[in-house]
């Protein structure tokens, strides 16, 4: 006799999952942070070396450089920079979705040896005399003119310089390129100066960013770089998502044809798996990269495997003459240990990847580990729960519903 309560509960849960995914799925998918290979952008690994031989590259120096770079990138109004110190002397900069890559790259990569010189080219002050982020592009509250204000570390030194050169122009050089010239109008005793006559606030901010960067007493050399054009990135994303969808749909068809009723349940838990994985990635703030999509699709394979192991076990138990319910119980119990053992080894592999891999591979490893954890939840626990509802409802009491051969039962 069919138990309509259980069958109803099953249908209700399935319906709820479908509604949830349909209602919020696209929204969540749109919130995913895309890696630079999927939206264009660039990644550069810099090797940091000191400007003069007396200095050493210390942890402090690296983290100062990191902070200064971050400020510089933010000052340029570029979104979501990722700047990390790597190893003893490297800094990795990732910028996704930058439209003018060349300009950004020039600005960031500038090792920026900033000097203040007189008209004869004598160096009066250096970038390191400027206080950290001592330059600011602001609008003068009285004149509404864009200006750059400067704060020097050593007020006395600056006062001496201004005293000596009052009335004369002072040029600011970045490396050997003059950026701007300002006339010293008066003796400045407090270490505070301003450069007037900026075109607009944007230009003023940019100049301030360059000046601040000049505070960094380091040289940066590009040792690794990769850049992806925005159109190429979008194309990669589209084809990756399309490939994932086609692959998933084919797997759905296979599961439903081969495993019938449990196969349908596997598909529903797979939908939940994909949904949860995207949601988790978003919550963790993880970035989706191309290898990440690959790991995602591979994770679908692993999740399907868990289902297959369980269903095959269940079929065997059916063949040995057990009832549907006890076949399900024995099948899921026995398959669980196998699935756990197999997945732990995969996690070991992924952890090693994460520990030793570079950034792109790390994304892959994180997605793989997440997908294994989520698949245990959906493909093992979820699938088992739904299947037990289905079996208990007594609506599927024929071997054909399980893709099993009827004649083999009770042999």
């Amino acid at each position, binding site marked *: 006799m069919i138990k309509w309560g259980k069958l109803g509960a099953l249908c209700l849960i399935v319906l709820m999952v479908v509604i949830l995914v349909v209602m919020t799925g696209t929204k969540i998918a749109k919130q995913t942070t895309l890696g630079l290979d999927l939206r264009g952008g660039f990644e550069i690994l810099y090797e940091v070396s000191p400007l003069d031989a007396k200095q050493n590259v210390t942890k402090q120096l690296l983290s100062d450089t990191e902070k200064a770079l971050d400020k510089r990138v933010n000052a340029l109004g570029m979104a979501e920079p990722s700047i990390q110190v790597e190893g003893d002397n490297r800094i990795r900069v990732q910028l996704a979705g930058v439209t003018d890559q060349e300009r950004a790259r020039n600005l960031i990569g500038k090792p920026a040896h900033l000097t203040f010189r007189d008209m004869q080219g004598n160096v009066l002050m250096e970038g390191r005399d400027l206080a950290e982020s001592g330059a600011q592009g602001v609008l003068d509250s009285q004149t509404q003119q864009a200006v750059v204000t400067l704060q020097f570390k050593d007020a006395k030194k600056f006062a001496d310089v201004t005293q000596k050169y009052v009335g004369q122009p002072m040029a600011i050089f970045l490396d050997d390129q003059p950026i701007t010239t300002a006339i010293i109008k008066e003796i400045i005793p407090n270490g505070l100066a301003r450069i007037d006559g900026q075109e607009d606030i944007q230009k003023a901010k940019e100049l301030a960013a360059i000046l601040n960067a000049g505070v960094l007493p380091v040289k940066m050399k590009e040792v690794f770089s990769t850049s992806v054009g925005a159109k*190429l990135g979008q194309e990669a994303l589209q084809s990756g998502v399309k490939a994932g969808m086609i692959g998933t749909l084919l797997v759905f068809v296979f599961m439903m044809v081969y495993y019938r009723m449990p196969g349908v349940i596997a598909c529903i838990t797979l939908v939940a798996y994909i949904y949860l994985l995207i949601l988790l990635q978003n919550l963790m703030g993880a970035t989706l990269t191309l290898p990440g999509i690959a790991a995602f699709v591979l994770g679908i394979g692993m999740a399907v495997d868990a289902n297959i192991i369980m269903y095959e076990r269940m079929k065997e138990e059916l063949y040995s003459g057990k009832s549907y319910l006890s076949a399900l119980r024995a099948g899921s119990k026995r398959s669980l240990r196998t699935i756990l053992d*197999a997945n732990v*080894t995969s996690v070991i592999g992924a952890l090693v990847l994460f520990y030793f891999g570079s950034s792109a591979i790390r994304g892959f490893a994180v997605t793989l580990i997440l997908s294994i954890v989520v698949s245990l939840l959906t493909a093992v626990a979820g699938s088992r729960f739904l299947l037990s509802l289905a079996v208990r409802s007594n609506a599927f009491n024929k071997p054909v519903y399980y893709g099993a051969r009827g004649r083999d039962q009770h042999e």
Partner: protein
Amino acid sequence: MSDKCTDYRFDFVTHRKKYFILSAFLIVAGIISLCTMNLNLGIDFKSGTRIQVQIGKVFNEDDVKQTVEKIGLKPGSITTAGSKNDMAVLQFPEPLHKDQVAALTKAVQAAYGNHVDVQESMVNPMISRELARSALYSILIASVGIVIYTTIRFEFRFALSSIAALLHNVFLVITLFSLFQIEVDLPFIAAILTIVGYSIHDNIIIFDRIRDNLKRVKVKTVQDVEHVVNYSIGQTLARSINTVLTVLICSLALYIFGGESIRNFTLALIIGLTFGAYSSIFIASQIWVSWRGYDFKRKCM
């Protein structure tokens, strides 16, 4: 369920020497290929600059070469790629400066229009050596970790047979990439490590079943051991085939529709997963049978 474990349809065990010979042949071929042709290393491991230009229509490689040479750059090679043959891949043996890349972008855009898009990667020799080294370490450490886990959960013989099959799979993937001179890049390592994880995954499911069946049967002769293995493989065969099928479906979809940048990655996966399925049935289990049978004979005598 039959208690004797003699009820199986296929005999996987008897011909095991043939599988060993086949694999040995492939491995020797791999060694020869690696010694004579080496691997076609991409710039990820060799240093230099790789520039991928999306032109958006079919083009002539010589035209691109001329365009690039006009600004004083000499590409080591130019190849056509992309599903519509609309992409040019330029390899430079030396790392290009960012100004040179910018000049190149401008030049190809002047020649082919503003829709042209450029993807660039540059690696310094020092970095590429580090990458290769850390890749090798990753595989070794992952192997050790897996051996330890498998030895604790199963037994040493299972662990070593698994690792033998795993190295066999990895080596054969490298062999095929060498034989067909397919470019080896950074994602290739991710592929290799996925193969490592997956072939172990596959082995463990069969070994788990062998262990299960061994508990239920008293093995008295070498034949008994062979029967148990045949029976266990037979029991898990549907699962083995179906799993590799579903993963292959996914990987093939990625290969065909996934775009240029992951093509080599998915190719490595497809080859590795196929070998993984093959080796868990025909290599790992068979090494274990031979080893177990040998120990068994020694004890009995």
